[in-house]
Protein backbone atom coordinates (compact mmCIF):
# COMPACT_ATOMS: atom_id res chain seq x y z
CA UNK A 1 0.00 0.00 0.00
CA UNK A 2 1.41 3.42 -1.01
CA UNK A 3 1.79 6.40 1.31
CA UNK A 4 -1.09 8.22 -0.40
CA UNK A 5 -3.36 5.18 0.00
CA UNK A 6 -2.62 5.00 3.74
CA UNK A 7 -3.21 8.75 4.27
CA UNK A 8 -6.34 8.51 2.09
CA UNK A 9 -7.75 5.67 4.19
CA UNK A 10 -6.97 7.58 7.42
CA UNK A 11 -8.54 10.80 6.09
CA UNK A 12 -11.76 9.07 4.97
CA UNK A 13 -11.92 7.04 8.20
CA UNK A 14 -11.49 10.18 10.34
CA UNK A 15 -13.97 12.28 8.34
CA UNK A 16 -16.54 9.49 8.35
CA UNK A 17 -16.06 8.92 12.10
CA UNK A 18 -16.65 12.63 12.91
CA UNK A 19 -19.80 12.82 10.79
CA UNK A 20 -21.08 9.48 12.09
CA UNK A 21 -20.75 10.65 15.72
CA UNK A 22 -23.05 13.55 14.84
CA UNK A 23 -25.46 11.25 12.97
CA UNK A 24 -25.45 8.70 15.82
CA UNK A 25 -26.51 11.41 18.28
CA UNK A 26 -29.58 12.18 16.16
CA UNK A 27 -30.42 8.50 15.51
CA UNK A 28 -30.08 7.65 19.22
CA UNK A 29 -32.35 10.55 20.15
CA UNK A 30 -34.91 9.44 17.55
CA UNK A 31 -34.66 5.82 18.73
CA UNK A 32 -35.08 6.67 22.41
CA UNK A 33 -38.07 8.96 21.89
CA UNK A 34 -39.87 7.51 18.85
CA UNK A 35 -38.91 3.83 18.90
CA UNK A 36 -35.89 2.01 17.54
CA UNK A 37 -37.60 0.27 14.64
CA UNK A 38 -38.39 3.46 12.69
CA UNK A 39 -35.09 5.12 13.64
CA UNK A 40 -33.09 2.12 12.40
CA UNK A 41 -35.18 1.85 9.23
CA UNK A 42 -34.57 5.56 8.51
CA UNK A 43 -30.85 4.99 9.09
CA UNK A 44 -30.73 1.95 6.79
CA UNK A 45 -32.57 3.74 3.95
CA UNK A 46 -30.23 6.75 4.25
CA UNK A 47 -27.15 4.50 4.15
CA UNK A 48 -28.50 2.73 1.05
CA UNK A 49 -29.19 6.07 -0.71
CA UNK A 50 -25.68 7.30 0.17
CA UNK A 51 -24.10 4.06 -1.12
CA UNK A 52 -26.12 4.35 -4.35
CA UNK A 53 -24.81 7.93 -4.75
CA UNK A 54 -21.20 6.75 -4.43
CA UNK A 55 -21.77 4.09 -7.12
CA UNK A 56 -23.85 6.32 -9.41
CA UNK A 57 -21.54 9.35 -9.27
CA UNK A 58 -18.13 8.04 -8.21
CA UNK A 59 -17.67 5.19 -10.68
CA UNK A 60 -18.58 7.14 -13.87
CA UNK A 61 -16.55 10.13 -12.63
CA UNK A 62 -13.43 8.00 -12.23
CA UNK A 63 -13.88 6.34 -15.65
CA UNK A 64 -15.05 9.18 -17.90
CA UNK A 65 -13.36 12.41 -16.75
CA UNK A 66 -9.67 12.95 -17.68
CA UNK A 67 -7.57 12.27 -14.59
CA UNK A 68 -5.79 15.65 -14.49
CA UNK A 69 -9.05 17.64 -14.78
CA UNK A 70 -10.53 15.41 -12.08
CA UNK A 71 -7.56 16.00 -9.78
CA UNK A 72 -7.71 19.81 -10.10
CA UNK A 73 -11.48 19.99 -9.53
CA UNK A 74 -11.48 17.41 -6.77
CA UNK A 75 -8.35 18.86 -5.16
CA UNK A 76 -10.07 22.28 -5.07
CA UNK A 77 -13.17 20.75 -3.42
CA UNK A 78 -11.01 18.98 -0.84
CA UNK A 79 -9.14 22.22 -0.18
CA UNK A 80 -12.38 24.17 0.45
CA UNK A 81 -13.67 21.44 2.77
CA UNK A 82 -10.34 20.85 4.53
CA UNK A 83 -9.66 24.55 5.13
CA UNK A 84 -13.17 25.04 6.56
CA UNK A 85 -12.72 22.13 9.00
CA UNK A 86 -9.26 23.39 9.92
CA UNK A 87 -10.50 26.95 10.50
CA UNK A 88 -13.34 25.80 12.75
CA UNK A 89 -11.10 23.38 14.66
CA UNK A 90 -8.48 26.11 15.29
CA UNK A 91 -11.18 28.56 16.45
CA UNK A 92 -12.66 25.89 18.77
CA UNK A 93 -9.24 24.81 20.10
CA UNK A 94 -8.37 28.43 20.93
CA UNK A 95 -11.71 29.14 22.61
CA UNK A 96 -13.08 31.48 19.94
CA UNK A 97 -15.90 29.13 19.03
CA UNK A 98 -17.97 26.88 21.27
CA UNK A 99 -17.14 23.18 21.12
CA UNK A 100 -19.66 20.87 19.48
CA UNK A 101 -21.62 19.53 22.46
CA UNK A 102 -23.17 16.17 21.56
CA UNK A 103 -24.88 15.93 24.98
CA UNK A 104 -26.65 19.24 24.42
CA UNK A 105 -27.64 18.26 20.87
CA UNK A 106 -28.93 14.91 22.17
CA UNK A 107 -30.98 16.58 24.92
CA UNK A 108 -32.43 19.14 22.51
CA UNK A 109 -33.37 16.50 19.90
CA UNK A 110 -35.00 14.32 22.58
CA UNK A 111 -36.97 17.32 23.87
CA UNK A 112 -38.08 18.24 20.33
CA UNK A 113 -39.14 14.69 19.47
CA UNK A 114 -40.85 13.72 22.72
CA UNK A 115 -44.58 13.12 22.22
CA UNK A 116 -46.48 16.26 23.10
CA UNK A 117 -43.62 18.69 22.44
CA UNK A 118 -44.47 21.84 20.49
CA UNK A 119 -42.16 20.90 17.61
CA UNK A 120 -43.56 17.37 17.39
CA UNK A 121 -47.14 18.64 17.38
CA UNK A 122 -46.32 21.04 14.54
CA UNK A 123 -44.54 18.51 12.32
CA UNK A 124 -46.13 17.25 9.10
CA UNK A 125 -45.75 13.63 10.21
CA UNK A 126 -46.94 13.99 13.81
CA UNK A 127 -49.27 11.21 14.84
CA UNK A 128 -49.13 9.50 11.46
CA UNK A 129 -47.74 6.08 10.66
CA UNK A 130 -47.73 4.91 14.27
CA UNK A 131 -50.34 2.22 13.98
CA UNK A 132 -48.07 -0.60 12.69
CA UNK A 133 -45.38 0.15 15.34
CA UNK A 134 -43.75 2.47 12.82
CA UNK A 135 -43.26 6.17 13.44
CA UNK A 136 -42.89 8.61 10.55
CA UNK A 137 -41.24 11.31 12.66
CA UNK A 138 -38.62 8.89 14.00
CA UNK A 139 -37.97 7.56 10.49
CA UNK A 140 -37.69 11.04 8.95
CA UNK A 141 -35.45 12.48 11.65
CA UNK A 142 -33.09 9.47 11.53
CA UNK A 143 -33.07 9.50 7.70
CA UNK A 144 -32.34 13.24 7.51
CA UNK A 145 -29.66 13.05 10.20
CA UNK A 146 -27.76 10.20 8.55
CA UNK A 147 -28.29 11.49 5.00
CA UNK A 148 -27.19 15.07 5.68
CA UNK A 149 -24.20 14.11 7.85
CA UNK A 150 -23.31 11.36 5.36
CA UNK A 151 -23.32 13.70 2.33
CA UNK A 152 -19.96 15.18 3.31
CA UNK A 153 -18.58 11.66 3.75
CA UNK A 154 -19.90 10.70 0.31
CA UNK A 155 -18.23 13.77 -1.20
CA UNK A 156 -14.94 12.90 0.48
CA UNK A 157 -15.19 9.23 -0.56
CA UNK A 158 -15.98 10.16 -4.17
CA UNK A 159 -13.39 12.92 -4.45
CA UNK A 160 -10.51 11.10 -2.76
CA UNK A 161 -11.43 7.70 -4.20
CA UNK A 162 -12.04 8.82 -7.78
CA UNK A 163 -8.94 11.03 -8.07
CA UNK A 164 -6.58 8.35 -6.77
CA UNK A 165 -8.26 5.25 -8.24
CA UNK A 166 -9.01 3.94 -4.73
CA UNK A 167 -12.81 4.24 -4.65
CA UNK A 168 -13.21 0.80 -3.05
CA UNK A 169 -10.59 1.58 -0.37
CA UNK A 170 -12.22 4.95 0.40
CA UNK A 171 -15.68 3.35 0.62
CA UNK A 172 -14.32 0.58 2.85
CA UNK A 173 -12.64 3.08 5.20
CA UNK A 174 -15.91 5.07 5.50
CA UNK A 175 -17.89 1.89 6.20
CA UNK A 176 -15.32 0.77 8.83
CA UNK A 177 -15.61 4.15 10.57
CA UNK A 178 -19.41 3.89 10.63
CA UNK A 179 -19.20 0.42 12.20
CA UNK A 180 -16.55 1.49 14.74
CA UNK A 181 -18.57 4.59 15.78
CA UNK A 182 -21.74 2.48 16.18
CA UNK A 183 -19.93 -0.14 18.30
CA UNK A 184 -18.13 2.47 20.42
CA UNK A 185 -21.38 4.48 20.74
CA UNK A 186 -23.17 1.35 21.97
CA UNK A 187 -20.36 0.42 24.40
CA UNK A 188 -20.04 3.85 25.96
CA UNK A 189 -23.82 4.04 26.39
CA UNK A 190 -24.45 7.24 24.48
CA UNK A 191 -21.61 9.23 26.05
CA UNK A 192 -20.77 10.66 22.65
CA UNK A 193 -19.52 13.87 24.24
CA UNK A 194 -16.47 11.85 25.32
CA UNK A 195 -15.36 11.51 21.69
CA UNK A 196 -12.55 14.03 21.02
CA UNK A 197 -14.46 15.43 18.08
CA UNK A 198 -12.50 18.67 17.66
CA UNK A 199 -9.13 16.88 17.66
CA UNK A 200 -10.46 14.47 15.05
CA UNK A 201 -11.83 17.32 12.97
CA UNK A 202 -8.45 19.09 13.19
CA UNK A 203 -6.60 15.94 12.04
CA UNK A 204 -9.00 15.32 9.17
CA UNK A 205 -8.89 19.01 8.15
CA UNK A 206 -5.08 18.78 7.97
CA UNK A 207 -5.26 15.62 5.82
CA UNK A 208 -7.95 16.95 3.47
CA UNK A 209 -6.05 20.23 3.00
CA UNK A 210 -2.84 18.29 2.28
CA UNK A 211 -4.61 16.09 -0.27
CA UNK A 212 -6.23 19.15 -1.85
CA UNK A 213 -2.90 20.94 -2.29
CA UNK A 214 -1.25 17.75 -3.58
CA UNK A 215 -3.97 16.85 -6.12
CA UNK A 216 -4.37 20.39 -7.51
CA UNK A 217 -0.58 20.51 -7.98
CA UNK A 218 -0.46 17.07 -9.64
CA UNK A 219 -3.47 17.81 -11.84
CA UNK A 220 -2.03 21.10 -13.05
CA UNK A 221 1.21 19.39 -14.11
CA UNK A 222 3.48 20.16 -11.14
CA UNK A 223 5.90 17.39 -10.15
CA UNK A 224 6.13 17.31 -6.36
CA UNK A 225 9.55 16.29 -5.00
CA UNK A 226 9.34 12.79 -3.51
CA UNK A 227 6.03 12.18 -5.31
CA UNK A 228 3.48 10.63 -2.85
CA UNK A 229 5.82 11.24 0.11
CA UNK A 230 5.14 14.97 -0.35
CA UNK A 231 1.68 14.34 1.16
CA UNK A 232 3.36 13.53 4.50
CA UNK A 233 5.45 16.70 4.27
CA UNK A 234 2.29 18.73 3.59
CA UNK A 235 0.56 17.04 6.54
CA UNK A 236 3.50 18.11 8.74
CA UNK A 237 3.46 21.69 7.41
CA UNK A 238 -0.29 22.15 7.95
CA UNK A 239 -0.19 20.43 11.37
CA UNK A 240 2.50 22.88 12.43
CA UNK A 241 0.49 25.78 10.98
CA UNK A 242 -2.64 24.70 12.91
CA UNK A 243 -0.62 24.36 16.12
CA UNK A 244 0.97 27.81 15.77
CA UNK A 245 -2.35 29.42 14.80
CA UNK A 246 -4.12 27.83 17.81
CA UNK A 247 -1.40 29.10 20.17
CA UNK A 248 -1.41 32.57 18.63
CA UNK A 249 -5.19 32.80 18.75
CA UNK A 250 -5.23 31.73 22.41
CA UNK A 251 -2.78 34.52 23.24
CA UNK A 252 -4.61 37.11 21.17
CA UNK A 253 -7.97 36.61 22.90
CA UNK A 254 -11.18 37.98 21.45
CA UNK A 255 -11.11 41.11 19.31
CA UNK A 256 -12.52 44.34 20.77
CA UNK A 257 -15.55 44.05 18.53
CA UNK A 258 -16.19 40.46 19.64
CA UNK A 259 -15.61 41.29 23.30
CA UNK A 260 -18.11 44.12 23.04
CA UNK A 261 -20.67 41.73 21.51
CA UNK A 262 -19.82 39.16 24.21
CA UNK A 263 -20.84 36.05 22.30
CA UNK A 264 -19.24 32.72 21.33
CA UNK A 265 -21.08 31.25 18.33
CA UNK A 266 -21.52 27.51 18.04
CA UNK A 267 -21.68 27.29 14.24
Amino acid at each position, binding site marked *: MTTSAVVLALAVFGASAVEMVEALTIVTAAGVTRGWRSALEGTMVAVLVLAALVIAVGVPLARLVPINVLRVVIGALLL*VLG*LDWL*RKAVLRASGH*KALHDEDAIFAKTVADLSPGSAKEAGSETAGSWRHGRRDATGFTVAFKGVFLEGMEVVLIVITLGASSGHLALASGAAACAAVVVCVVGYLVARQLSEVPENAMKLAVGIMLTSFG*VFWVGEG*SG*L*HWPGSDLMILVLVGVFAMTAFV*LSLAMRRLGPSRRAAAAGSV*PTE
Partner: protein
Amino acid sequence: MTVVVRAVAAFARFWKGFLIGDAPELFVGTLVFVGAALGLRHHGAVAVVLLPAIVILFLAGSVLRGRDRS
Protein backbone atom coordinates in the same frame (compact mmCIF):
# COMPACT_ATOMS: atom_id res chain seq x y z
CA MET B 1 -43.45 25.23 -5.88
CA THR B 2 -42.97 21.96 -7.75
CA VAL B 3 -40.90 19.08 -6.40
CA VAL B 4 -38.30 19.61 -9.13
CA VAL B 5 -37.86 23.32 -8.34
CA ARG B 6 -37.56 22.54 -4.63
CA ALA B 7 -34.99 19.83 -5.34
CA VAL B 8 -32.92 22.17 -7.56
CA ALA B 9 -33.14 24.92 -4.92
CA ALA B 10 -32.03 22.48 -2.19
CA PHE B 11 -29.18 21.26 -4.42
CA ALA B 12 -28.04 24.87 -5.05
CA ARG B 13 -28.29 25.66 -1.32
CA PHE B 14 -26.20 22.60 -0.49
CA TRP B 15 -23.40 23.61 -2.88
CA LYS B 16 -23.52 27.25 -1.79
CA GLY B 17 -23.23 26.13 1.84
CA PHE B 18 -20.49 23.64 0.96
CA LEU B 19 -18.36 25.95 -1.19
CA ILE B 20 -18.90 29.31 0.48
CA GLY B 21 -20.57 28.71 3.86
CA ASP B 22 -19.64 31.31 6.46
CA ALA B 23 -16.08 31.73 5.18
CA PRO B 24 -16.21 33.05 1.59
CA GLU B 25 -12.55 34.06 1.88
CA LEU B 26 -11.58 30.36 1.85
CA PHE B 27 -13.46 29.87 -1.42
CA VAL B 28 -11.63 32.87 -2.90
CA GLY B 29 -8.35 31.50 -1.51
CA THR B 30 -8.97 28.16 -3.21
CA LEU B 31 -9.60 29.89 -6.55
CA VAL B 32 -6.39 31.91 -6.11
CA PHE B 33 -4.56 28.67 -5.22
CA VAL B 34 -5.82 26.82 -8.32
CA GLY B 35 -4.86 29.80 -10.51
CA ALA B 36 -1.39 29.92 -8.93
CA ALA B 37 -0.93 26.16 -9.36
CA LEU B 38 -1.78 26.37 -13.07
CA GLY B 39 0.47 29.43 -13.51
CA LEU B 40 3.45 28.02 -11.59
CA ARG B 41 3.35 24.42 -12.86
CA HIS B 42 6.61 24.83 -14.77
CA HIS B 43 8.41 26.52 -11.85
CA GLY B 44 9.03 23.44 -9.66
CA ALA B 45 10.87 24.77 -6.59
CA VAL B 46 9.05 28.10 -6.49
CA ALA B 47 5.67 26.37 -6.76
CA VAL B 48 6.51 23.84 -4.02
CA VAL B 49 7.17 26.71 -1.59
CA LEU B 50 4.60 29.23 -2.80
CA LEU B 51 1.54 26.97 -3.10
CA PRO B 52 1.43 25.81 0.56
CA ALA B 53 2.28 29.40 1.57
CA ILE B 54 -0.82 30.70 -0.24
CA VAL B 55 -2.96 28.17 1.65
CA ILE B 56 -1.39 29.13 5.01
CA LEU B 57 -1.94 32.83 4.27
CA PHE B 58 -5.64 32.42 3.51
CA LEU B 59 -6.15 30.06 6.48
CA ALA B 60 -4.52 32.54 8.87
CA GLY B 61 -6.59 35.39 7.43
CA SER B 62 -9.78 33.38 7.78
CA VAL B 63 -9.00 32.38 11.39
CA LEU B 64 -8.32 36.04 12.27
CA ARG B 65 -11.59 37.00 10.60
CA GLY B 66 -13.31 34.32 12.69
CA ARG B 67 -11.83 35.96 15.82
CA ASP B 68 -13.34 39.28 14.79
CA ARG B 69 -16.72 37.64 14.45
CA SER B 70 -16.56 35.66 17.69
